[in-house]
């Protein structure tokens, strides 16, 4: 009995072991089939899934080019790069968010609760915990060795000259795009082309060495650029403007100093301005704009020398012509008059038109273009000079963001007082232009008739520090004839000589010429403000030839008197003296 039991139990045990083992083999066989499915049939699917996790694509940022400017005989960088770091976290890999949050607070400051909240987010793989970490902070973060915590180098602009020429330079935003000024206009050159790194990485994004899927493409570094700006001149221009805005209680002011011999801009400034290193604190976006190229206004009587030059150039008047001025013209039912101080009707000459700033004189010059009256011929002739010769109503191409075109009314009869409109344009109303446009037009008028593209980019500097200087670009030859140009110089010198400058200029060594403008300001709804004016001045200073054109706009000064004479003219005087005193101007030879 016992024996049979043993035999039976043993036999049953062996049977059951085999049954159980058979089941085990079936499971193993299923696993084998599953492995075949996953590893061979679905291989491509998992390869793609793996690469989407493992293969990371990085931009290798190209370092943005520096911006340099003239400092006496040498050049000096005015915009440089500084490498700072962005700290980010990957919540999927940060297992102990509280601990990590507590660890980063002593390094980068801030609020642990805030970091904890960010690190606990479940729907993202990338949270930015800190920006602009220094090299030292970055090293401390790396030393924590927390998986899922990383830093990313980012270049930031620094400004060794602080806010100098801020609006000319513009800034670089968080995305690395140049905004406003040079940074915007030359963004492509400055930015370069980022390189590309595609690599299989570990979970923290550290590339694993030697993988056949890795791709590397070196970045093309951004070019360093050299500006035509003279830093000392720029500095003084800014300080003169700031003083002027203060003393005339104006809303703002702009000035441009341009070399008429090649169109290069030596100084360009506006008040108020901002600090480009803290651009993100600026509340009024208007401050970013370089008003000298982006804010056209009605320029006022500084147009008169250009009207005169156009009339002389057409041969309809001569520099010495005299005419009878009735002290008012009725045009399209509207009476054009002069200011009281100019006296009544009488015989006037061209010098008087400029010196006394006769609106009726400028209107008379337009009438001469139409053989004695304002008509289509006169309008077309004058329109052609404004737009095709002086380049008003179109961008000049100066290397600045948001350059404005300004406005010149079309000459076609619009049955809405087009002749009155055109009479107004002869003394700088009913049209608008920017300081840079006026400077370019004046430059072509005083340099013998060549319109150079006004420019602020002198050239680029290659990796070896070699300058590649761009040739000045001529937009138009024969803006006016050399003879007309030569005739305009004494006419404008006469205006300066007959106006009061303190101190006066040494006319034996230097030639100084110019013209004021007191421009009415158009109301948004039509008509003009009765009590608000812009003061403008355009002139030149030089020795044997005009070496600098200076254009000054003062926005709504409130210090009394005519805005042009009371507010803009002193700024011109100070800038002209500055150029003479600092030996920027070569005196006459004898």
């Amino acid at each position, binding site marked *: 009995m016992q024996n049979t039991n043993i*035999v039976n139990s043993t*036999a049953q045990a062996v049977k059951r*072991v085999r049954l159980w*083992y058979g089941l085990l083999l079936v499971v*193993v066989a299923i696993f084998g089939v599953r492995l075949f499915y996953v*590893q061979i049939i679905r291989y491509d699917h998992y390869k793609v899934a*793996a690469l989407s996790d493992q293969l990371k694509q990085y931009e290798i940022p190209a370092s943005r080019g520096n911006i340099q400017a003239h400092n006496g005989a040498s050049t000096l960088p005015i915009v440089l790069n500084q490498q700072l770091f962005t700290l980010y976290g990957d919540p*999927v*890999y940060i297992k102990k968010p509280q601990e990590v949050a507590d660890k980063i607070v002593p390094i980068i400051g801030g609020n642990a609760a805030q970091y904890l909240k960010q690190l606990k987010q479940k729907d993202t793989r990338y949270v930015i915990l800190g920006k602009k970490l220094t090299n030292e902070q970055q090293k401390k973060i790396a030393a924590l060795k927390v998986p899922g915590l990383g830093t990313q180098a980012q270049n930031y602009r620094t400004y060794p000259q602080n806010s100098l020429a801020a609006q000319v330079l513009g800034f670089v935003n968080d995305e690395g795009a140049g905004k406003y000024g040079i940074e915007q206009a030359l963004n492509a050159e400055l930015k370069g082309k980022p390189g590309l790194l595609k690599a299989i990485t570990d979970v923290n994004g550290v590339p694993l060495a030697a993988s056949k899927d890795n791709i590397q493409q070196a970045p093309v570094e951004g070019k360093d650029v050299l500006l035509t700006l003279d830093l000392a001149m720029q500095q003084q221009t800014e300080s003169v403007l700031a003083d002027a805005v203060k003393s005339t209680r104006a809303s703002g002011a702009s000035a441009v100093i341009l070399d008429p011999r090649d169109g290069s801009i030596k100084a360009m400034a506006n008040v108020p301005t901002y600090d480009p290193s803290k651009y993100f604190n600026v509340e009024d976006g208007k401050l970013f704009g370089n008003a000298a190229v982006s804010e056209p206004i009605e320029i006022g009587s500084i147009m008169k020398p250009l009207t005169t030059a156009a009339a002389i150039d057409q041969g309809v008047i001569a520099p010495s012509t005299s005419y009878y001025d009735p002290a008012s013209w009725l045009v399209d039912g509207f009476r054009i008059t002069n200011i009281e101080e100019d006296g009544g009707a009488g015989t006037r000459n061209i010098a008087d038109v400029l010196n006394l700033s006769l609106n009726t004189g400028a209107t008379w010059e337009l009438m001469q273009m139409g053989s004695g009256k304002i008509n289509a011929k006169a309008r077309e002739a004058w329109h052609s000079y404004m737009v095709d010769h002086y380049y008003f109503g179109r961008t000049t191409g100066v290397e600045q963001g948001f350059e404005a075109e300004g406005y010149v009314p079309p000459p076609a009869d619009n049955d809405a007082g087009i002749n009155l409109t055109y009479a107004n344009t002869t003394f700088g109303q009913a049209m608008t232009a920017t300081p840079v446009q006026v400077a370019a037009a004046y430059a072509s008028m005083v340099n013998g008739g060549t319109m150079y593209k006004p420019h602020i980019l002198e050239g680029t500097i290659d990796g070896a520090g070699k300058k590649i200087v761009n040739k000045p670009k001529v937009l138009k030859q024969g803006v006016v004839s050399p003879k007309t140009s030569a005739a305009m110089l004494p006419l404008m010198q006469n205006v300066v000589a007959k106006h009061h400058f303190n101190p006066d200029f040494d006319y034996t060594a230097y030639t100084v010429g110019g013209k004021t403008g007191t421009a009415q300001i158009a109301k948004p709804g039509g008509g003009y403000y009765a009590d608000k004016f812009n003061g403008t001045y355009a002139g030149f200073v030089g020795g044997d030839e005009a070496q600098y054109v200076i254009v000054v706009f003062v926005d709504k000064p409130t210090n009394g008197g005519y805005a042009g004479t009371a507010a803009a003219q002193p700024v011109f005087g100070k800038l002209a003296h500055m150029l003479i005193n600092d030996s920027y101007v070569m005196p006459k030879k004898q």
Partner: protein
Amino acid sequence: MMRTEMRSTHRTQSRVAVSSALTLGRKHRSDYWLLILCAILLSTGLILVYAIGPALSAAHHVSSGFYLHKQLIAIALSLVAFLITSQVPLQWWKQAYKPLLIAAGLATLLALVLPVNPDYPAHRWVRLGSFSFQSVEVLKFAVMVWLAGFLSQRIKESSITDTNQTLKPILIALGAIGFVVAGIQSDLGSTGVMVAMMTTMAFVAGLPMKRILLITAIIGAGLVLAISATPYRRARLQTYLHPEANCQTTGYQACQALIAVGTGGIVGLGLGSSVQAYGYLPEAANDSIFAIYAEKFGFIGSILLLAVFVAFFARMKSIAERLPDDFSRLLVIGVLSWLSVQSLINIGAMIGLLPLKGITLPFISYGGTSVVFVAAAIGLVFQCSQYAAYSVPRIAEGRNFRDNTLRSRAERA
């Protein structure tokens, strides 16, 4: 007086010895193939841990030899465990279930009482200074030894089919294990392994099929309850059913494991080229090591590894079949079912056939406790193999298996 006492003591002892004596034949050479297969598996694990050392060191910020070094220490400890279990006679083991169960109970209690590492909040580890182990490994071993002895005793007493004497204690043990290991320690993987092991042993011992099915049904109900009662298990089940839908959250490990296995392709990326070990796949050296292996060695390598495992299981199965004694046979079946079920649960999770359980792959996974107790179990099998008959009894003829083999051996000699 003294003498009489001693004699009576001796008699008592010998009576006990007779009643629980093993019906083993003469000892002969052990099964060295078993050890060779173990060595192959163990070396595969070592090579893997060595190969992913740099990746682990990058992901966990330890030196690149850290894991290999710890694993070598564990293997040295395993050798000690192996020597003990293979040398201490089976007779002793059959009677040692009480101290073993007490030790396992103590270890479990310690795990429940001692403070836990906040990273692993389940009360699974016993930490005594620098020494730490998982209590459930002790429990597995102790329960296996106890059950082999218990069942063989019931067979001997012909009460294996008795509900009160056999089934009841087993169900009580199952309930206790389920409560502690699955309930408190939240270790469903180990619970599964133990339940499978105990059920298999009971099945082979000759418990009526009906009751086995009953137990299975009860366990099934318990499993459903366990899963539906805890949110994180429900999440795991969801993850298991739809791993690719939750790749960024709950299904992360399952997805990364499948990616590792899938990218292995036919021949694998090569020993030095695993990417998933670089922090993508959690527990790359422990629970997920099969996926890393499959990534490195591809389909061919995976099938080869499965084949080695199957050869190893086949070896144990063959030993079990040829053992004339119930205790030793049940012991071997216990070890076989433990290691095979644990291996399959682990691999099944890595290839997306089973939910993730958080248990190691025997021999291959890094992890001290696991290796030491596996070695101890193999030591028992190794000792049993000394008593295995040369051939399997011919069941159909119904002859006395023991007499047959003894005769054939005698004839050969």
